[in-house]
């Protein structure tokens, strides 16, 4: 399975939740599969999806699902200790780990080699870390939502991207409709 196949499978779970989605092709795929006002698409700023989601989870009570990538987590590794030490039980970080920088030509990341993001999250102090196969992502995500405990999911999948259009929505529109959905 590649990332877009995971996103298609979990789209019904994501639909009613606040979602912060990683820069580049992940946001393009989610936008094309099931655009919702509850989705916050990152159009730039690689690495900060997990931080934006944590700030959001700590500031209001609704569940927040962050869809991040292995490359973006590696870019902002300091996020893991911050997440671990500021527990928000409405926070789920889903790292789609395809071992590559998908938006830039599928160059390999270290997460696809010797580095384990699940072990790094555990070493950072995250208490509920689950590594799963791509096929199990939906089940693990639903369990995390039902469990109401901060969870880091590392979903291991194959490298590859679906061909989707660039998001042309204005960033202020994305942000405004998202904030209205947060308040709703």
């Amino acid at each position, binding site marked *: 399975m590649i990332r877009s196949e995971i996103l298609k499978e979990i789209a019904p779970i994501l639909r009613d939740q606040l979602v912060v989605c990683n820069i580049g092709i992940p946001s393009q795929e989610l936008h094309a599969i099931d655009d919702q006002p509850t989705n916050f698409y990152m159009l730039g700023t690689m690495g900060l999806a997990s*931080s934006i989601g*944590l700030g959001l989870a*700590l500031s209001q009570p609704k569940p927040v699902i962050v869809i991040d990538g292995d490359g973006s987590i590696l870019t902002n590794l300091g996020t893991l200790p911050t997440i671990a030490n500021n527990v928000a039980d409405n926070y789920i970080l889903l790292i789609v780990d395809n071992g590559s920088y998908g938006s830039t030509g599928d160059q390999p990341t270290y997460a696809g080699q010797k580095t384990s993001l699940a072990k790094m999250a555990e070493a950072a102090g995250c208490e509920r870390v689950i590594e799963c196969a791509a096929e199990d992502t939906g089940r693990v995500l639903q369990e995390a939502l039902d469990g109401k405990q901060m969870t880091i999911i590392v979903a291991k999948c194959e490298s590859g991207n679906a061909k989707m259009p660039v998001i042309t929505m204005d960033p*202020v529109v994305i942000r405004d409709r*998202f904030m209205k959905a947060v*308040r709703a």
Partner: protein
Amino acid sequence: MNIDQKITDDLVANDISFVTTVPCKQLAGVIKEIDARDEIFHIPSNKEDEGMGLCAGAWMGGKRPAIIMQNTAIGVTINTLATLIQFYRMPLPMLISYRGELREPVACQVEMAVHTKALLAQMNIPTYHFHKQSDVEELDNILKYTFMCNKPVAILTDANFWGGYGDQ
């Protein structure tokens, strides 16, 4: 007047309840004060761009955020300021210790100090420079201005403002 208390009082009076910090010696007192206040959730970050991500999320979640950091962080956060805070039009007061200015004991700090205002000007970021203790009287208005216009706003605070480094 205790500047650390005055700054924190102004943050609280402007309903700022989510503050992220990356420490600087000059900022130690205000960080301690913020950490002690029940009205403010203090979340230290490991790098300033991470902190801006936290602030962006907090604001979308309904809280007013602020970041406290050193001016060296301008070198770290240019991309985040342009593509997140400015592109999505978000307010962000940045209380910045302005190292490398008058009374600075560490030469290397001057290397970023000489670029600080030029970079902020290049980014079209409204910038205020606190040099004397009485300059802090403007903070309340600067915070109101920031949340009026939904922009990142820089408040540079130099060593003279904080009272120098003593015998260092």
